[in-house]
């Protein structure tokens, strides 16, 4: 994409360096410096210390647990988001708009409330938990609880990316496929799905990034047990409380780098992700 601005003056435009400078100046204390300090303090005791705190069994476990729970939450939310977007953009039914609003609601709910809500449902004295517990089914304070919490808070993300693509997709592609003789499933697989590739990838990345960083709901439902239900953000919090700043910092660096990578992919792959938009 070529960037052009309207030129208001002849010769050297002072507005350019000034406005760029002001923007960076505001971002410096608010975003850049906090990010930078993670890296500065994380490695201040040498790379050896950094490495050993990173490879501590508890840290490894926390990272692995975060990846695994976020992965399954992402898989579920992308599949469900795809399905929900299809249903809600193809069929009109009574209460359709109410459903759309409800799906998007978890974005606005504080994550602690989300965790609390899950506890009230699945917890030992919760509506469902009261019935399941005697059967020996315990959902809260296990990795499944973390997946549930992740699903809840990242619910609208994939849906929100996929739904607009469904809405703007030209119906004539699917109609063409139908007149050529394809079944509904063949049309979806060969025509609709390839056009959604970009939306699915960006929806998945957003969901995963959000799920890995989830804290508020996880801390309520997981029980925060080291080597059992402690995810990476919980590990940072726990280590910080214990005064082990280096241990917390090492994981913080990993999480920061991970989000950086995910959002770089999202940004630079935009041309590829928006491939279908230019032809529409």
């Amino acid at each position, binding site marked *: 994409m070529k960037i052009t601005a309207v030129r208001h003056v002849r010769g050297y435009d002072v507005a350019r360096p000034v406005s760029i400078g002001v923007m960076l100046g505001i971002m410096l204390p608010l975003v850049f410096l906090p990010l930078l300090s993670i890296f500065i303090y994380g490695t201040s005791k040498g790379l050896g210390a950094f490495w050993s705190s990173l490879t501590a069994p508890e840290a490894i476990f926390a990272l692995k647990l975060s990846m695994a729970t976020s992965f399954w939450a992402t898989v579920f939310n992308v599949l469900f988001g795809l399905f929900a977007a299809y249903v809600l953009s193809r069929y009109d039914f009574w209460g359709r708009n109410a459903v759309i609003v409800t799906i998007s609601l978890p974005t606005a709910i504080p994550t602690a409330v989300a965790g609390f809500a899950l506890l009230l449902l699945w917890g030992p004295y919760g509506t469902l938990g009261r019935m399941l517990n005697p059967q020996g089914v315990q959902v809260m304070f296990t990795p499944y609880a973390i997946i549930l919490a992740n699903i809840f808070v990242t619910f609208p993300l994939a849906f929100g990316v996929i739904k607009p693509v469904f809405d703007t997709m030209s119906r004539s592609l699917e*109609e*063409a496929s*139908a*007149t*050529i*003789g*394809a079944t509904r499933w063949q049309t979806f697989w*060969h025509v609709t799905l390839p056009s959604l590739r970009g939306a699915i990838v960006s929806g998945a990345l957003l969901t995963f990034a959000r799920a890995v960083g989830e804290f508020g709901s996880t801390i309520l439902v997981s029980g925060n047990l080291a080597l059992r239900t402690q995810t990476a953000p919980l590990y940072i919090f726990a280590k910080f409380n214990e005064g082990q700043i280096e241990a917390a910092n090492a994981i913080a660096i990993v999480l920061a780098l991970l989000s950086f990578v995910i959002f770089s992919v999202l940004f630079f792959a935009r041309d590829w992700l928006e491939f279908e938009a230019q*032809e*529409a």
Partner: protein
Amino acid sequence: MTPKMQLVPDDPHVSWAPERSEKAGVAASVRGISKRFKKASVLEDVSFEVAEGESLVLLGASGSGKTTILRIIAGLEQPDTGRVILHGKDVTDLPARERGVGVIFQAYALFPRMTVEKNIAYGLKIRHRPRKERRETVNRLIDLVQLEKHRKKYPWQLSGGQQQRVAIARTLAYKPQVLLFDEPFGALDAQTRVHLRREIRALLRKVKVPSVFITHDQEEALELGDRIAVLNDGHLEQVGTPDEVYNHPATEYVATFLGAANLLLGVVTRGCVEIGTARLPAETETKKFREGQSVKLVFRPEDVCVSPDAKLPEGCRRLANGVIEQIDFVGAYERLNVRLDLAHRPQSGELAPLYQVTINTPERMVGVPVMATRPKPEAHATRYKPGDRVAVGLTSFSLLPNYTLARQR
């Protein structure tokens, strides 16, 4: 793209029409189709037939319901009443995918993630045909539509005309019962349009698949159609060959929608049409009318001949005298606005054919304006200037009943 005439290679052994007995029958027929959307009636009792190998053009203004007919034939829309019959089989209740029709959508609707080859092979792929058959069919079709150089390209890398050829090839691959073209040239510039519709006409003659075109462009309709069906506000006004609908329009709407038309009101009187004081001899045309019946006289600008003296050419029936009001040069021909004097009462014994026309006075608005066109050679041979008196005659015209109630038609 460069407008060059592309002829389809001759290959009499390959037919892309569905395999069935060769007798020239009815390929598609639409019987009594009506359709309403919410409260608005879109189609009212529309019936027509498409013969084997024929191309029929549905011509109508936007909102006339022509796209709805196409979608009903394709199975993308259900009619409220009426049947759709393809090659003798009632397909009204079949879904689109079981009808075997080929639709060429307005924006072609090529699959953006597939190459030209894959687009064309799609119909065979979803039918699980063997790879060898797919490859052979794709090769023959790419040859037919002359896209050899572009077979590995994606739709967005092709010009509009090329995309359209891919869209046609994609439907031909599964030997469609009938091809349906939805405003096929709507998205193209004027020059490409003309070029492409000749190309498609040649292609269709080759593949012999019956086709239905949809357009609002009368020129396109005249050129593409073996027959034209004129649609107005959901009902068919006339179905006929281009010659019939252009030269013998059945209704005023057809007359005015296909090209420019002059319209005068008259009365049938003893084998003549009386228009004001003018009498136009019309022995054969008035046969189907009662004596004294009110009629509309419809004629095209190119059917008007004007003459500076009373001598009108052979075969041209004299209508009245008039005054040249305006002369426009519009490229291929010259356009004249003539005011006819239809109020002059000839004195008894007056024989001078070019009597003094009185409409060139302050009361001249009584003159009835008509439009005439002349080809260039004629315009050069006899030049006119505004105010010239001329005799006006007609080489051909048609008469329509003039009902006072619109619903009587």
